[in-house]
């Protein structure tokens, strides 16, 4: 709690001083609109960029020109910070596409290859890795998530007898409780069904993480440690662009890949073929075949979150 009561306020004041704004604008007025922590962490970003980033609008309220500026600003900033040419895109949702995911629990072997694929793609903080996918080792015949063990060891071969494996990540709910919980609307559902976060708008209050019944949201408690060689330079504003301290992040169905027709990194990494991804609106897609022909279920359906992530077994 100490972190929360003192530190942001002090930081904010420090931030305002840097910007030469201390007298002009009250700290409280800014606190609710933009996250002041990130821009300050980068000493080499230019004063002008810091200034503009500080007053950057919400992603959905920015004009196309403002977005272009914001993207260029971010690219300059990552260049200054990591000395890498990061491309920050903002590909719009595809027409007539709503994404859905299905996972075959009888094929999943618990290798955790999806977790690795995800952390390689999404520029999460490394060592210790921040992971969007949690693979639970479950007793066969039980569906009690509370008894699932995400920390099963890497010494013993999998699948272990009598166990099955249940990977959980953001379910991209049609009725997302996290979006409702956000006091500043920094997270929302895109037209293609992906629940995204505007990292620049997030104030780091972590209400969304509280609201999520699937443990899908992860918080950057520290300045992310992202080694230069681990950076994936192909990024999306709402997706895997490098994040900063004090913001929430989560699985975005690899928005930077899937909006270009590529499959999510977790699916590509899975060697068993347990993962099926596609367009729910296309009656000939694989995901629709699975939903119509297999015994599918969703987690915690009684919460009326309407996840677009199904599990099936055959």
């Amino acid at each position: 709690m100490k972190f929360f009561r003192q530190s942001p306020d002090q930081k904010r004041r420090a931030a305002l001083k840097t910007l030469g704004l201390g007298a002009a604008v009250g700290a409280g007025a800014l606190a609710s609109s933009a996250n002041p922590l990130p821009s300050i962490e980068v000493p080499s970003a230019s004063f002008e960029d810091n200034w503009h980033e500080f007053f950057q609008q919400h992603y959905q309220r920015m004009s196309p020109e403002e977005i272009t500026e914001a993207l260029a600003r971010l690219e300059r900033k990552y260049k200054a910070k990591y000395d890498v040419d990061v491309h920050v895109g903002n590909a719009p949702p595809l027409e007539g596409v709503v994404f859905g995911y299905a996972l075959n629990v009888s094929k999943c072997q618990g290798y955790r290859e999806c977790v690795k694929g995800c952390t390689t793609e999404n520029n999460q903080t490394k060592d210790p890795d921040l992971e969007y996918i949690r693979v639970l080792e479950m007793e066969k015949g039980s569906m009690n998530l509370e008894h699932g063990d995400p920390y099963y060891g890497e010494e013993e071969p999998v699948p272990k007898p009598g166990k099955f494996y249940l990977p959980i990540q953001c379910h991209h709910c049609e009725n997302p409780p996290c979006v409702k919980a956000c006091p500043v609307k920094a997270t929302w559902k895109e037209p293609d069904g992906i629940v995204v976060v505007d990292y620049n708008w997030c104030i780091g209050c972590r209400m969304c993480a509280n609201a999520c019944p699937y443990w899908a949201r992860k918080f950057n408690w520290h300045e992310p440690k992202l080694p230069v060689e681990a950076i994936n330079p192909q990024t999306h504003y709402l997706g895997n662009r490098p994040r900063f301290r004090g913001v929430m992040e989560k699985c975005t169905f690899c928005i930077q890949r899937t909006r270009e027709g590529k499959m999510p990194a977790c699916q590509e990494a899975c060697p068993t073929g347990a993962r099926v991804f596609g367009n729910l609106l296309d009656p000939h897609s694989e995901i629709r075949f699975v939903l119509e022909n297999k015994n599918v279920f969703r987690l915690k359906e009684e919460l009326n979150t309407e996840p677009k992530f199904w599990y099936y077994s055959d």
Partner: protein
Amino acid sequence: MKGRLFLLMLLMLFPSLLWALESSEIRNDGDGVVAAKQYDDPKEAVARVPAFVTDLRTDKLVYYPCENCHTKGLIAPNEKVRELTDMHAEIQLQHGGGRFWCTTCHDLTDRNYLVSLKKQRISLNDPYLLCGQCHSARQKDYFMGAHGRRKANWKGEKRLTNCTECHNPHAPKTPPRIPRTKPVARMGLSIVPTEELGGEKVWEKYEEAKTSHSESKKP
């Protein structure tokens, strides 16, 4: 009339009989040897499924072209079930529980091809046609996207991973392997396996305490 009534009552008492009546249609296709439908030509299986492509397999095979040894008179084809010693000794057939032998799948006279149960030649590049004869349910899932996997994209050209990229046709069961590293517990949290807590769950302890407490209160 009486006979029919009797039959009806029998059916009401034992609804499973109805199932038995139908079962000549419902064949056992539980991925065993009995195929739900045997195609005269294995290619019929792909006639009505969404178009797809697969990568070549022949350039991945160590022994290909097989012709080099097999049909140039160097080695006489030998159908006998035996332990292979002179060559291919690494291949131990662990498939089908001893119900079939190499020549069920490999053409005896033209070794560059696989062969269907009805003796049509199947390219070594299309093993999914071969497997589907006996695993028709899995094959259907494979064509429709519920078994196996696509490569690279969800949209556009459908490039599928071939059965033999995941399953060794001679020992198809996926062997267990070591998983990737486990997640690190968040700072301040420790992972104590339940066994180390004496196998006792916190709530079990609580329940225990509650019952013993209420017992001790009894006069």
